[in-house]
């Protein structure tokens, strides 16, 4: 296989994404973890570009690297954090080991399933006017789910506000 520029780009992006993920698992401080994950999200956005999904890549950066990460950071700031304290609960070690094996097995099984998967079909021309294609599809075929999604988001945000509002009255009642 010739080493194309696309392949090098994929390797680089994949490496960053995985390193970000591994760092998420291994860093001590919560803030660092989140930051590590931002790198992962960004490189995933790059992968999207490679996969002819420019619009989604942008969305990815905006929503994940932007909004979600920021919300997380706010969440971290608003709460108090001890450093990760491993193995404090009994049986935790065992559980981790089991889980690790399980995850490995899971990965292995799926890897067996995918490692030489090739559909060989001609790729569609998704990169041409990508947002337009998405828009047409979204507003024709998937208009109802789309509207429902807006309702979901609305409900979620209202809910979030209600939940996180400091209900002083109630607290006053409690005390």
């Amino acid at each position, binding site marked *: 296989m010739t080493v194309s520029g696309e392949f090098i780009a994929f390797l680089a992006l994949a490496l960053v994404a995985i390193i970000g993920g591994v760092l*998420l698992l291994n860093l001590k401080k*919560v803030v660092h973890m989140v930051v590590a994950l931002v790198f992962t999200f960004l490189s995933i956005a790059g992968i999207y570009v490679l996969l002819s999904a420019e619009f989604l890549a942008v969305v990815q950066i905006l929503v994940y690297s932007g909004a979600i990460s920021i919300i997380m950071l706010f969440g971290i700031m608003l709460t108090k954090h001890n450093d990760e304290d491993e193995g404090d609960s009994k049986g935790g070690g065992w559980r981790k080991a089991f*889980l690790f094996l399980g995850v490995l097995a899971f990965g292995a099984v799926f890897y067996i399933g995918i490692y030489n998967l090739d559909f060989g*079909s001609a790729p569609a021309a998704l990169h041409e006017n990508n947002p337009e294609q998405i828009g047409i599809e979204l507003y024709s075929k998937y208009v109802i789910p789309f509207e429902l*999604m807006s309702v979901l988001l609305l409900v979620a945000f209202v809910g979030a506000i209600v939940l996180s509002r400091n209900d002083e009255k109630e607290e006053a009642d409690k005390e």
Partner: protein
Amino acid sequence: MSGVPVSAYLALALILFCIGLYGALTKKNTIIVLISIELMLNAVNINLITFSKLGMAPAITGQIFAIFVIAVAAAEVAVGIAILLSLYRNRKTVNIDDMNQLKN
């Protein structure tokens, strides 16, 4: 055309998914658990988009689906963080070990 095979993308997604899964099930900090779940969702998105381009019947639908996933994920994070904050107000902790009301 592409030099990158389908399996490479899928493998990447798999690795990220596994990392996310492991993180979600082992981390003590609730926020990291939430983030790990986001990672898993991202891995799924990679799969969706990969298949949308390189799948058996390539179509834009995969990307549409990914958009929905992202939207739902956003909503989820919003609610999740809100719940977290409200819990924290009541119990002064974000350690997931202390959140076992399911039992009592």
